[in-house]
């Protein structure tokens, strides 16, 4: 052991303070001072980050302990107020005006190819479309719903599920829990027949969403993975 560490320069002092902060040995006042430095001094903040990374393998000593079941709900209440039952779904930007024209082209084209556009339907909500997308996600779907037969045809405009996972389609009536409509094909279009009892619930403004699920889909009856795209369905 040399005494190089006793030959202190301001720089080595700063680095040592960062290390002590990360190690956790400082008292409350010194820690408060470090927090101020982190906020105001980029060099010090970088040193702290480097020490965090350096010592992070020691995190392996922490065992997993299941937190109380209400934790996430409590956090969401603190952050977002009292969320509606479908709260997490509301944060998605549900409709982007700029996408409507492009979407119409995609859906009509897909519909024509699939021979979906037969004689004009009679019901008022007979044919509806949605574009599904989300902030922070480049995955996008176009969906066409034919009320008469309860048929949804949904096509991936961009994006595919990760290897070993599936996309699952859901619809959400305002204030209610999402209802699964089944898995999507990994590529191309998917046709889904909505169960007769559910058809009445799909009206102008109903939200459709796609979540990223384990292979075979959610086993809980509710989405377990991130919502990668969502959008409201509207009459053409």
């Amino acid at each position: 052991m040399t005494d190089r560490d006793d030959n202190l320069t301001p720089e080595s002092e700063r680095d040592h303070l960062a290390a002590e902060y990360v190690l956790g040995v400082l008292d409350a006042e010194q820690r408060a001072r470090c927090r101020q430095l982190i906020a105001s001094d980029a060099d010090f903040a970088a040193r702290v980050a480097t020490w965090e990374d350096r010592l992070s393998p020691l995190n392996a000593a922490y065992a997993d302990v299941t937190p109380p079941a209400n934790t996430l709900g409590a956090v969401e209440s603190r952050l977002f107020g009292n969320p509606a039952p479908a709260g997490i779904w509301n944060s998605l930007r549900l409709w982007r005006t700029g996408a409507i024209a492009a979407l119409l082209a995609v859906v009509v084209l897909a519909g024509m190819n699939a021979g979906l556009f037969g004689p004009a339907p009679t019901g008022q909500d007979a044919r509806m479309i949605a574009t599904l997308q989300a902030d922070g996600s480049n995955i996008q779907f176009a969906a066409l719903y034919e009320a008469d037969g309860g048929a949804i045809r949904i096509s991936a405009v961009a994006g595919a599920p990760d290897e070993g996972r599936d996309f699952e389609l859901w619809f959400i009536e305002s204030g209610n829990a999402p209802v699964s409509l089944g898995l999507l094909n990994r590529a191309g279009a998917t046709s889904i027949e909505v169960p007769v009892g559910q058809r009445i619930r799909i009206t102008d403004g109903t939200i459709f969403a796609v979540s990223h699920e384990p292979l075979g889909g959610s086993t809980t009856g509710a989405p377990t993975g991130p919502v990668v795209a969502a959008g409201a369905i509207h009459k053409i």
Partner: protein
Amino acid sequence: MSWIMDPIEISDLISRTALGDRAAFARLYHLSGPKLFGVCLRILKDRPDAEEVLQEVYVKVWQNANRFAARESSPLAWLAAIARNHSIDRVRARKPVARDIDDVPDIVDTRPDPEAETISLGEQGRIDECMDELEDDRAAAVRSAYIEGYSYKELAERFDVPLNTMRTWLRRSLIRLRDCLER
């Protein structure tokens, strides 16, 4: 589960959280909550406190997610640092009443559990090698400082050495660890 979490997925979820995606935030919580709760419990050694701090940790994760994107760091290290810092700050803010040490085994095994060890053998193996280069009591002091969040004063008492000796131990040990890890 635990640190078996896929860092790329965790990074992605933090980035989405920064964009206000609540579903991504919920998923992030489900993946990382048990590990971070383990961190809080280990340092706070009090369940109600740990439950409260865990909530604060995730409030902070939501609020600071945008800072993560700007930083090149392991997402797990970033999350654990938030949990450790909150827990340690809470401990330091307590009135200086001794912790209820009777509730906690005095000598806690701070070695990584075997499962965790196999996970990140690269990094884990490296830090263990570097720890092995330290004297046993120095290495034990570093581990218990980091893992349990003990202050200099607590460490000096536990290792039965004067406060300044403990400061010197840790100063030299940290420098040697840094030099070893960067070799």
